[in-house]
């Protein structure tokens, strides 16, 4: 039997996202030229929440979109073909912008690698940054996050599952042994 343990509750997630929103504003000097691109599925929800917070704090509406990385994965052949997620760029695109990729869990780094490749086919941003709710370590590629909600030491045998209210009806991060 696997057992799961909540490592972040709703208020923790709320605080983590608020902090990341502030950090983005600080690092990008008021989020000028920033585009938030969530990686489906939960990265998109997180990107929207970050966008809302930045708007609350600063009164500026920053473009939020999604970037599906399925077609760029390096492990496609390990499983039957997967359904595609949705890619939707803001109307003005990503050229000359600072793109902040948003994902729920940072682990091997392969998803982010795929997202960078996908982004490359969509335009030429000035800079690309990475925000993640949880960094659980065990990187397999030279990738690090610019904004981290929580660093969570894990064993490779464990799983990290993120629940978000919009999709799952509750906010939580659970560690499953």
């Amino acid at each position, binding site marked *: 039997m696997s057992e799961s343990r909540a490592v972040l509750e709703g208020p923790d997630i709320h605080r983590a996202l608020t902090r990341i929103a502030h950090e983005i504003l600080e690092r990008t000097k008021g989020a000028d030229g920033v585009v938030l691109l969530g990686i489906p599925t939960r990265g998109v929800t997180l990107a929207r929440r970050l966008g809302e917070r930045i708007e609350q704090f600063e009164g500026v509406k920053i473009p939020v979109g999604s970037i*599906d990385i399925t*077609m*760029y994965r390096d492990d*496609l*052949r*390990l*499983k*039957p*073909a*997967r*359904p*595609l*997620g*949705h*890619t939707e760029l803001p109307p003005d695109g990503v050229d000359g912008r600072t793109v902040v990729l948003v994902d729920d869990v940072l682990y091997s780094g392969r998803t982010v690698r795929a997202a960078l*490749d996908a982004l490359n*086919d*969509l335009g030429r941003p000035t800079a690309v940054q990475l925000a993640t709710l949880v960094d659980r370590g065990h990187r397999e590629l030279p990738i690090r996050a610019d904004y981290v909600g929580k660093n969570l030491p894990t064993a490779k045998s464990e799983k990290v599952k993120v629940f978000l209210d919009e999709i799952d009806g509750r906010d939580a991060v659970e560690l499953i042994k």
Partner: protein
Amino acid sequence: MNKHLISAADLSKDDALLILDTAEELAAVSERSIKKLPTLRGRTVVNLFFEDSTRTRISFEAAAKRLSADVINFSAKGSSVSKGESLKDTALTLEAMGADAVVIRHGASGAPHRLANWVRGSVVNAGDGTHEHPTQALLDAFSMRRRLGSLEGRKITIVGDVLHSRVARSNVLLLATLGADVTLVAPPTLLPVSVGTWPCEVSYDLDAVLPKSDVVMMLRVQKERMNAAYFPSEREYSRRYGLDRDRFAKMPDDAIVMHPGPMNRGMEIAADVADSPRSTIVEQVANGVTTRMAVLYLLLGGESAQ
């Protein structure tokens, strides 16, 4: 999804919706400046065409290339096939090349089924004789969905030479799977004797069906049928079964007109009907690439189903 796509009957409703949803996501790729995805890098798709069909071959070729697959075009004309090499020997040659998928167009019904026995890769039917053309049906369904939304309960009328039409066979099967109500309209000579067992309605009266149709799909009437006494004359066919301006006016305002091409303008379809904004004939071509990308991705993008 099955390993092969040979008949529209191979697709469950979930499969069909997955293909259409995937195509919907891939449609955006055709609109961006880099129209290429790395997904099928290192995979080989062979276009094996025993019949001339530049349109279909180009469509599959573009689809495979946009997914970064290597494409080998193997046309029967001028090759060893026209010198009497059998389908089986051709299949073994393709095996030796390591084809991951073979897209086959053949004049004989069932040739893709036979091919599937002889190759390890996926077989995609790009039209076999008077049997089926499942990717055409998928692109038609995709085109309808883009215009009309869900096809559940939609009234779709297919008009023309059903007996010899692979497009009609695949469309009837796929549209029934997707929950649409299909009506076939044709002179009785151009309907199979067993059409009563198909999952659709049949009518001989186009004028009675048009006002209730959300989609009217006109099939091409081939020249050789005109000379084989299936109907008395072109003029009579056109008068009874052609979609002219008067009939077009009887269709509901938001109904659309489709044609798998190539058209006989003035015969089964009037020129200004074909060119009207309610005709999907041009977008059917673009949708063909997108839909075939979806099929190739879903057949080849994951682990080999072997």
